[in-house]
């Protein structure tokens, strides 16, 4: 029997398989120890790290909706120093590519973080979380604006030598333009999508359900929109697209790959089934065997129109 290859490349990074875990939904991997085979993952993306520790948003931080959840965790993390000291040692034992998600209050923060990470051998790539408000215009997220996106990616690209992924918000009119800006500024890949801005109201108290009023919608509810964005963007850019948004099983994952994603990330589904990534990897392998496709790269973007 011919070997079935699941291996894909994102920038300089070669992954055993295209199944990653999405930032903020897998902690620092240790939390899932014993519940899934961590060594089997294509890559691990950490919760977004900032320079200084952050306490995040007020409770209530999470609300369940129909086939989705709204979260307003708010980038709670211990800062890059603690991450390197407390979290990285476990992560690097896994032998799986570690991708660190980073965010900042301004361009300088992003650059500074990237510089620090550039010197850490065990970190294979950086994912820029560009769904953060920029300090100047509080209302706009970086990846809601082409030039802010360009500047941020460009700034980091100058100092960061390994694989650089730009993660984009779906709360835009035309995500292809933002993706092109990221590509032009030197990103090796874009990941689509982060969460949709959303809210809920308690009709008894007449108050917002979330302490932060609004939060980000994720889960199967948003999958059809995420898939459309991945399809649109993958036709417009040359760098690989990483699909994320509502992937709950191998079938969802394959939809993204066929629509053009070189790799995918599993987010909310980890909360529902902590071993879902392992199952997806196995079932994709079966699918490829049944279809007699021996390299997953032949499936990427194979949508028949």
């Amino acid at each position: 029997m011919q070997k079935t290859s699941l291996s894909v490349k994102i920038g300089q990074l070669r992954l055993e398989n295209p199944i990653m875990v999405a930032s903020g939904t897998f902690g620092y991997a240790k939390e899932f120890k014993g519940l899934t085979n961590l060594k089997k993952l294509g890559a691990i993306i950490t919760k977004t790290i900032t320079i200084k520790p952050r306490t995040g948003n007020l409770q209530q931080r999470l609300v369940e909706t129909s086939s989705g959840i709204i979260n307003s965790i708010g980038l709670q993390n211990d800062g890059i120093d603690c991450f390197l000291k407390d979290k990285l040692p476990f992560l690097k034992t896994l032998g799986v590519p570690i991708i660190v998600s980073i965010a900042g209050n301004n361009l300088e923060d992003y650059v500074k973080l990237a510089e620090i990470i550039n010197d850490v051998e065990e970190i294979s790539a950086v994912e820029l979380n560009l769904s953060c408000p920029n300090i100047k215009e509080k209302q706009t997220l970086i990846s809601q604006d082409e030039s802010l996106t360009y500047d941020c990616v460009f700034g980091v690209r100058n100092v960061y030598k390994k694989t650089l992924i730009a993660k984009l918000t779906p709360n835009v009119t035309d995500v292809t333009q933002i993706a092109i800006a990221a590509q032009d500024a030197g990103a090796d890949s874009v990941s689509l999508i982060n969460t949709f801005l959303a809210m809920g109201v308690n009709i008894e108290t007449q108050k917002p359900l979330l302490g932060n009023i609004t939060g980000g919608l994720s889960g199967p509810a948003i999958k059809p929109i995420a898939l459309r964005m991945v399809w649109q963007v993958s036709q417009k850019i040359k760098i690989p697209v990483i699909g994320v948004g509502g992937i709950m099983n191998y079938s969802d994952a394959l939809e993204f790959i066929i629509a053009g994603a070189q790799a995918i990330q599993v987010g909310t589904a980890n909360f529902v089934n902590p071993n879902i990534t392992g199952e997806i990897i196995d079932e994709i392998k079966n699918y490829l065997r049944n279809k007699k496709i021996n390299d997953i790269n032949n499936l990427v973007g194979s949508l028949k129109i």
Partner: protein
Amino acid sequence: MHSHNIINKKIKIIDNTRVCNNYYKLILDSSVIAKLAQPGQFLHIKINSSFDPLLRRPLSIHRILGGKIEILYELVGRGTKILSESSSGDILDVIGPLGKGFNYQSPQPKADPPQAEITNDKANPNNQLPILIAGGIGVAPLVFLAQKMKQTPIVLIGAKTKNEVLCMKEFKNLGCDVRIATDDGTLGFKGRVTDLLKEFLPANRIYACGPDAMLKSLQKIAAVNNLNCQVSLDEGMGCGIGACLACVINTTKGQKRICHDGPVFDIKELIWEG
């Protein structure tokens, strides 16, 4: 106690029946989880395979009988409604045991870091029995705790009305001195269970589970009377395993995840928002 052995398994329902009013008892068949479980720990259960509702539901381990795990739950929303409609033979996807339970084996602070540390130990541990205080469905984890304790505790149960007093028999069967407080006075003391507690002070070790309002007033009582008191918190959860940071609470020792660093905390450490 905190265990690194967490099981994710499809488990058969042995029984699922209404106890009274909106309260139900679920019995699950898992000797593996039964062996690992500690009082105060919980199971994270996917009620059905639909994405609506999407998330698992956290439910405390109520009692262990051999390889059988009992869960006592209140029908409060969609998830528990669907659960109440499951029947014996149905399969549930269960993760557990999760979280850090009650530190009940000794009144001394333990070195083991994942345990709830009892920092104040001035009260004399020997001349008084431990007291368990339950509000409403908060009795659920306390039966398992009473099962496991070496000293038979005094149990104070608070409920709205006589018909909603839960688990009196279970505690009595364990030899506990059981006292009741009902809001409407239809059984036992008329008033709050925290007011009933005052009759038992000074006390040494207190273990409590119930609505936030009860725990907040307990916190005041504990502070005034300098009591050792461990409480189990109830908060909406995402992952249930410490990954998502949905269930974070402020404590004197920094931000803690209720699902992983709790649900049991030393009441002195808790800093409630708002």
